[in-house]
């Protein structure tokens, strides 16, 4: 995923790499669910027992949470609070900001611990940052070669957009 103009782009290759990292984190942290959200609230990828969870809503609320906390940080003269932790009776949620751009969320219960989650999140973050850097490079390269335009939007006509609203 990368900035392209002001938009975000995600390719299949990098998506699979992210998927692998999330699965690894899910397993190694003994977590229930792991997911990755764009700072604007779009769900990027997830791993674990997501079928019972409304991941779209969760993504939006997590981003709202990070945004609100970021607002508090700036009021206090901090740049950002990069880690949030919410403890529940059974389930806990660990939220961390990665590379200023995406949010990594880990939901876990008593089968894991905060220490383990923090440790594994730190490792996963490093790998994820690298993947995002690769995507940024890829987008820049494709944009330079004019490939990005060919890939999708050149195929979409004004008529296609009009048809969506009929």
């Amino acid at each position: 995923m990368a900035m392209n103009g002001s938009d975000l782009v995600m390719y299949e290759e990098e998506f699979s790499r992210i998927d692998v990292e999330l699965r690894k984190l899910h397993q190694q942290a003994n977590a229930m669910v792991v997911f990755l959200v764009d700072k604007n609230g779009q769900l990027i990828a997830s791993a674990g027992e997501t079928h019972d969870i409304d991941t779209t809503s969760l993504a939006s609320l997590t981003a709202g949470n990070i945004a609100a906390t970021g607002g508090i940080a700036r009021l206090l003269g901090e740049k950002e609070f990069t880690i949030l932790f919410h403890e529940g009776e059974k389930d806990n949620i660990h939220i961390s900001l990665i590379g200023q751009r995406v949010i990594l969320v880990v939901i876990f219960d008593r089968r894991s611990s905060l220490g383990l989650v923090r440790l594994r999140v730190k490792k996963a973050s490093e790998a994820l940052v690298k993947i995002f850097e690769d995507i940024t490079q890829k987008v820049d390269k494709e944009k330079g070669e004019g490939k990005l335009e060919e890939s999708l939007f050149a195929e979409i006509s004004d008529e296609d957009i009009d048809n969506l609203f009929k």
Partner: protein
Amino acid sequence: MSFINYASREINCKIVYYGPGLCGKTTNLQYIHRRTNPEQKGKLISLATETERTLFFDFLPIALGDIKGFKIRFHLYTVPGQVFYAASRKLILKGVDGVVFVADSQIERMESNMESIEDLSINLAEQGYDLEKLPYTIQYNKRDLPNIAPAEDMDNLLNPRRVPWFEGVAVTGKGVFETLKSVAKQVLFELKKNY
């Protein structure tokens, strides 16, 4: 800020409903939620106070259909309209692709409408957006109430850019989908233009 996902073949965009307190932003989303097929919508999330005033935001994800095998999804947000929630309003505008301004047609609310548009313009500028360029639609809401200003007069006052506008009665749904379609279409054309 749109999110184009080639892996899941989705295009996601964000639309924010803005406007003064009690103008009907949440009511717009509630109507869209009621009238959209279950398979095309997610849950309507409302972070509201006990008296049902929006505290942080409402959120509704909807799917509009497919273009060339890509699912077109829109995330609809409202801001809290009350003046003292200024800090929250700014946060919600982050990454916005299109704005709907919901104006209250009652004559006594005209000043609040003007203040809110000014607030919108300033908050957008702080995030690096220009209200003069962003996909933007205005809805003159509450047309069913007795003490209202003529829509044309409101348009002269509130719409110097002459963007598309609609008369609305959000509680009954009048103008609600017309407004949404108008802004969604502008967002997609803008996206196409930029690529």
